[in-house]
């Protein structure tokens, strides 16, 4: 987000038709997934930054909801002049229309942004913000009562970077509509780009700051039941259950594998080699000695019944002792295998070190990438998208 951006935090409403409302002071989280980024649109509406008396803005829902799909709109001179469709044809993505108003209301506040789906009825309030989400087929509208909070109503989730001196107070309200996948969201406007199945509506309000230079944001949201929070302990039980099933697979696999492989088990070769002479098999072994002149080698094969040594005929590969090979061939008497194919997995013992070192880099890369975008939310003990991710 750039310096000129303002951020409005919004959260999705739950599936309940009438979700409970939390009070001021209740913990509130504002995942980036549903943060709208409002900025002056460099491209403008219709290519013009100034539209009538307004200024073109770009509303983006970061991640999650519309996933980077921007919604363009404009700042209008007054709320009464709202014209959701005005000047926006062909510019609005995903069937959403946006408009923004800047007129002061009776309390001297200014609406930050309103976004409106053309399919929804006009919403009262200072402004509306429409997000989308595909997850929930339950489309009942719900409205959340507004709460106000002044002073040090800080939440760490949102930084407003808009007009200087704005402290944010706002109403959050919402409605949800579900439209069928093939419904035309913006009927009558020829806007058919929507690929989402439901629409959420939010109202936000921004108020001028009392504390100069400080901008804060407070969101008042329905309580946790709204987003399906599960107690961390319950989730822990879920994790253990899944890992338990995995443990079951680990046992089952070891037990059942021998009946599903065409080759004799290495454990069987260790204990009763003679019974398998003449059979084809695939062995993984660590090279002990190589007799290059005779194309022979000795490998050590690990098994559940302990390691044993096998002589390999037809071993033409150049492998250092300590290297790892695959040998496919026929078992001969005297723990000897006539190799038809030898593949070198590790040409030397040091290859393992190389693999582990590179893999460690890979693990660090994955973790670094992850935590650059995600953070651990201490309150819910879960991963949430970083605000600056």
């Amino acid at each position, binding site marked *: 987000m750039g310096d000129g951006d303002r951020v409005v935090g919004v959260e999705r409403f739950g599936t309940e038709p009438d979700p409970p409302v939390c009070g001021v002071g209740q913990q509130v989280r504002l995942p980036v997934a549903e943060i709208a980024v409002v900025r002056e649109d460099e491209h403008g509406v219709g290519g013009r930054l100034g539209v009538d008396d307004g200024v073109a803005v770009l509303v983006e829902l970061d991640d999650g909801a519309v996933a980077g799909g921007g919604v363009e709109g404009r700042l209008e001179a007054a709320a009464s002049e709202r014209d959701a469709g005005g000047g926006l044809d062909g510019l609005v993505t995903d069937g959403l229309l946006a408009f923004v108003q800047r007129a002061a209301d009776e309390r001297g506040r200014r609406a930050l942004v309103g976004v409106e789906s053309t399919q929804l009825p006009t919403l009262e309030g200072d402004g509306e913000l429409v997000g989308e989400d595909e997850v929930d087929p339950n489309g009942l509208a719900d409205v959340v009562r507004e709460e106000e909070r002044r002073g040090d109503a800080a939440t760490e989730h949102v930084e407003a970077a808009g007009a200087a001196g704005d402290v944010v107070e706002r109403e959050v309200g919402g409605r949800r509509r579900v439209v069928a996948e093939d419904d035309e969201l913006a009927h009558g406007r020829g806007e058919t780009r929507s690929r989402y199945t439901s629409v959420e509506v939010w109202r936000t309000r921004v108020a001028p700051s009392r504390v100069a230079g400080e901008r804060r944001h407070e969101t008042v949201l329905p309580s946790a039941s709204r*987003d399906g929070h599960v107690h961390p302990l319950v989730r822990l039980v879920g994790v253990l259950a899944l890992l338990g099933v995995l443990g079951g697979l680990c046992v089952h696999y070891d*037990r059942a594998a021998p009946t599903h492989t065409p080759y004799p088990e290495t454990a069987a070769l260790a204990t009763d080699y003679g019974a398998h002479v003449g059979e084809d098999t695939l062995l993984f072994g660590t090279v002990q000695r190589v007799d290059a002149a005779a194309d022979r080698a000795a490998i050590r094969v690990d098994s559940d019944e302990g390691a044993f040594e096998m002589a390999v005929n037809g071993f033409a590969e150049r492998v250092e002792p300590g290297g790892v090979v695959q040998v496919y061939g026929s078992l001969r008497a005297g723990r000897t295998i006539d190799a038809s194919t030898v593949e*070198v997995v590790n040409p030397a013992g040091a290859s393992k070190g190389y693999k582990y070192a590179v893999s460690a880099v890979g*693990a660090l890369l*994955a973790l670094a990438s992850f935590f650059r975008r995600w953070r651990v939310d201490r309150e819910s003990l879960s991963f*949430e998208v970083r605000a600056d991710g």
Partner: protein
Amino acid sequence: MADLLTHVLAAYVVLTVASWRVERITPSWVAVGMCGGAIPDLVKVDLVLDSMTVEGALGVPFTWSPVSTLGGVGLVAGAIALAFGPRYRRRAFGFLVAGGSLSLVVDGLRVYADGRAGPWLYPVTWWRPPTPSLYVTSDPRVLVVAVAVAALVFAADRRFGRRGTAE
């Protein structure tokens, strides 16, 4: 298996390229997919906790091998997905499984002396898919190719990616 770095880079490459066309694949989710790519490598827990040790402790046959199969990826992905906030859980699971499965496919291309990869589709099937025997993990060329392709995609994403201009 291919090394962990190759797995992570493969997930990065595939998901980033896909994100150019699919709007919902954002960098946050590419990162989740990259972590998913590491899941099959958890089979290396064997180095820390030998399966024979576990077997001795439990008194039943035991092997870590299923971790590097479809079933293992699904279960581990499910466990990790539970650590995500509720709104992300389902998608996190999807991206973790996608990354993990991609790693299994990449692993399925490596060399087997008998021309058949391991039964990585377990527990769906014990069938061992044929492998083109493209590489062995210790071959540095594998990593060189992976890093080169990832670097190209990274540069292209910076230049042409959806967010390249927005950030």
